[in-house]
């Protein structure tokens, strides 16, 4: 099957019909869950970043702050990915050929890799080198801000 055929098959699936043919407030509900999830996700990343830079909670061990923040990151990720997947499934052709969507997915992959490969390791150590911490924070924040920005542009191009 070609990509176009796969996208068409998704668009004609029962799940896609359930979302796109229902009341348009279902779509609005998914958008709301997506935004709330992103807020939880990004604010937890900002909080870990502030701790790693020594700008907040400096008396608390990095690993302890990281543990609670990671819970919120997971909650935010589950909410955004679940709502985002349903949004994609309801109109896959619109999203797949949208350059802002493509950029968002690339930035999302980068952000998750930075999270898993770098930030998690930096947070496991209670006294990471300041240069490593700063670099990781910068990469992480730039990629997540990029995800949000690109995501907001999808609907306009």
């Amino acid at each position, binding site marked *: 099957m070609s990509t176009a055929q796969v996208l068409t098959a998704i668009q004609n699936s029962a799940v896609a019909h359930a979302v796109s043919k229902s009341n348009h407030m279902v779509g609005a509900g998914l958008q709301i869950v997506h*935004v709330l999830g992103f807020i939880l996700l990004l604010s937890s990343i900002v909080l870990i970043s502030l701790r790693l830079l020594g700008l907040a909670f400096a008396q608390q061990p990095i690993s302890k*702050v990281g543990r609670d923040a990671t819970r919120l990151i997971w909650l935010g990720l589950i909410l955004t990915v679940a709502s985002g997947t349903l949004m994609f499934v309801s109109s896959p052709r619109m999203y797949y050929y949208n350059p802002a969507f493509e950029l968002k997915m690339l930035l999302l992959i980068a952000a998750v890799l930075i999270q898993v490969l770098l930030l998690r390791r930096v947070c496991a150590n209670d006294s990471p080198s300041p240069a490593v911490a700063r670099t990781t924070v910068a990469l992480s924040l730039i990629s997540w801000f990029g995800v949000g920005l690109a*995501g*907001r542009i999808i609907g306009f191009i």
Partner: protein
Amino acid sequence: MDMNTLVALGERIEQSSVGAAIAESRYAFPVIEGVHLIGLSISVGLIFITDLRLMGLLFTHVPVRDVIHHLRLYVLAGFALVFLSGGLLFWSEASALIESPAFPFKMLFMALAGVNALYFELVLAKQDAVQENRPLLPRNVKLAGAASLFLWTLVIICGRLIPYLPHWT
């Protein structure tokens, strides 16, 4: 002032040079929307985290006073981005915002969240249990956290509903 007068006023605002420039630019409007989202993820997001701490659900090892004092600067910086971008968005689509029922409700819930925050700051945070950083916080502190979480969630919901609810009827 009736609704028609308000909408006419909105139309004059968005027809001004700045309003029209934002509305007509291909990228200005979506980029400002993106800045609005990032700003509120920082400000409202850190407020959510503070609320969860007040409710005793997360970061219980961090003293409440530290959470409030350490995050304040970044909450305010996030709000600066939100109000700046929100002001520009209003400038470019004032009449549509005035006509949507979601917009006045968003403003109402924001005002209530502000009153709640002010009451917490001026009255509840002054209690000995908060000042002395006792592990068990009074019920009114938990309630203030829950109220803030609830009201800001309503602000976000109303904001996202603006394009979905363009008219009252």
